[in-house]
């Protein structure tokens, strides 16, 4: 394959993967700690895009700045959602939980439709969307390669956030508490941990993370009430592939999915690319249900629980 083309596809794939990873970190956290499959996750992504859009629209500030300003608002949304919809279902069956989030997603989509109409809104941000041209690199036979700053920013933040989160969960005391709660809720209660607070915190952080993702991709995508749905399936693929609860897994599998998607859309055809990654997804699930980066020990220990 022609090195220029190859490089470009690789760059595009990695940058796309960065966006996927960024969008999925929050989901994997909620998934991993609370064992809740949040089908409304895409809608929070959408709401964050809207909020950023409106702030940019009315106050004419930079979208990246707007995204940061919005963190407390999104956090609050997370808390409110937790109290209204998540906390009452913590002890319900998996099914009831899933379908409450399905209902929630219907509600959010249509409330947004009602208030903000079905128009497709986007911002144009010169500096972030004019590509940087790298090259040529004659030694590598690469003529030129384009990098979109907006995507680069999203990618960089994805890496930063997932690393920071990994370290937070691994090393910090709160991280340990979160992990402990995710493994055995009643034991955590007995250690004097206010698990309700941990769940609330986890859920809200998850929503903030997806909110950040929504704001950061606004220069790249347009927002409409149903945009969440375009992303949510990919988020699930990324999360399961990476291993539920593994932020680093989400990062790496986001990149894998991004690269696979771009290359397969070039070679096999844009219309079939989803088939490819869904099949890859099913295959990996079947071969390794704990995901690529789910702890191997985790798989084995789970086994102990199911067979003495």
């Amino acid at each position, binding site marked *: 394959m022609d090195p220029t083309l190859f490089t470009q596809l690789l760059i595009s794939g990695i940058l796309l993967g960065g966006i996927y990873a960024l969008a999925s970190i929050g989901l994997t956290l909620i998934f991993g700690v609370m064992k809740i499959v949040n089908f409304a996750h895409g809608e929070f992504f959408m709401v964050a895009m809207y909020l950023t859009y409106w702030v940019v629209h009315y106050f004419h500030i930079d979208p990246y700045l707007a995204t940061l300003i919005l963190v407390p608002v999104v956090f609050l949304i997370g808390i409110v959602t937790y109290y209204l919809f998540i906390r009452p279902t913590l002890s319900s069956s998996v099914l009831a939980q899933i379908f409450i989030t399905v209902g929630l997603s219907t509600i959010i989509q249509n409330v947004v439709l009602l208030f903000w109409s079905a128009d497709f809104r986007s911002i144009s941000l010169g500096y972030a969307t004019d590509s940087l041209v790298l090259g040529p690199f004659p030694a590598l036979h690469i003529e030129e390669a384009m990098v979109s700053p907006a995507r680069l920013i999203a990618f960089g933040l994805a890496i930063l956030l997932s690393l920071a989160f990994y370290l937070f969960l691994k090393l910090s*005391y709160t991280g*340990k508490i979160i992990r402990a709660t995710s493994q*055995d809720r009643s034991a955590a209660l*007995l250690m*004097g*941990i206010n698990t309700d607070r941990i769940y609330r915190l986890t859920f809200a952080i998850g929503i903030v993370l997806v909110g950040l993702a929504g704001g950061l991709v606004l220069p790249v995508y347009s927002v409409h009430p149903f945009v969440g749905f375009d992303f949510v399936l990919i988020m699930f693929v990324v999360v399961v592939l990476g291993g539920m609860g593994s932020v680093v897994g989400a990062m790496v599998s986001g990149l894998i999915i991004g690269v696979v998607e771009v290359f397969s859309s070039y070679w096999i055809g844009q219309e079939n690319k989803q088939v490819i990654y869904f099949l890859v997804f099913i295959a990996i699930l079947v071969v390794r249900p704990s995901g690529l980066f789910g*702890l191997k020990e985790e798989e084995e220990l789970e086994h102990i*629980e199911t067979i003495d």
Partner: protein
Amino acid sequence: MLKVSGLNVSYGDVQVLFDVSLEIRVGEFISIVGANAAGKSTLLRAISGLLKKTSGSIEFQGKQLVGRPPYAVVEAGIVHIPEGRHVFPLLSVRENLEVGAYTRRKSRKDLRRSLEELYGLFPQLYHHRDQLAGSLSGGEQQMLAIARGLMSRPTLLTVDEPSLGLAPMLVEKTFQILEHINKENVTVLLSEQNVFNALSMSDRAYVIENGRIVLTGAGKELLTDEHLKKAYLGM
């Protein structure tokens, strides 16, 4: 120190504890014995705040505990070691212990000191400190569960069937440790099926039957009680 009076507990519509009252003084070693399903675990769980449908009064050092969430109970100084160990399987032994010190998380130094103390008490745990708790043997997990409970320096430790499923050697060991802890001024409330061992160690014991306290007395005395011999010791 702990005063339970008129405690009623239900699961759903089914009442399990009826008007239970008991009293524990500082430094005592108390056992609760009774048949299966008598309500021993329920009593301990009610004290630790895990159960919702609870009425009556549980007073601990003058504070009313009924209706308070489990974490408040732990903060008050009561730690419950549940039946079935419940260690955090994917945390290392050390991390398990650190989480155990949650109520005293503010002071790093304190935490390290408790950790060292407990490693001294449980050398095996020190040996396995970086291993995932889920991969420990049953006995070791039981040790860990007890050690983890002690990390928050409780004034009252309630223990539910610590000897369940342990090999004879470990059963001995577990009881020795409980005795040792008690000597270090931790009040112990123990629920055990291993009635003989439990009673011979206890200062006092309560016998619970069908959710009611039917008998109480000094541990050694109860060992010779005819009814008890028949019902629980199978003699």
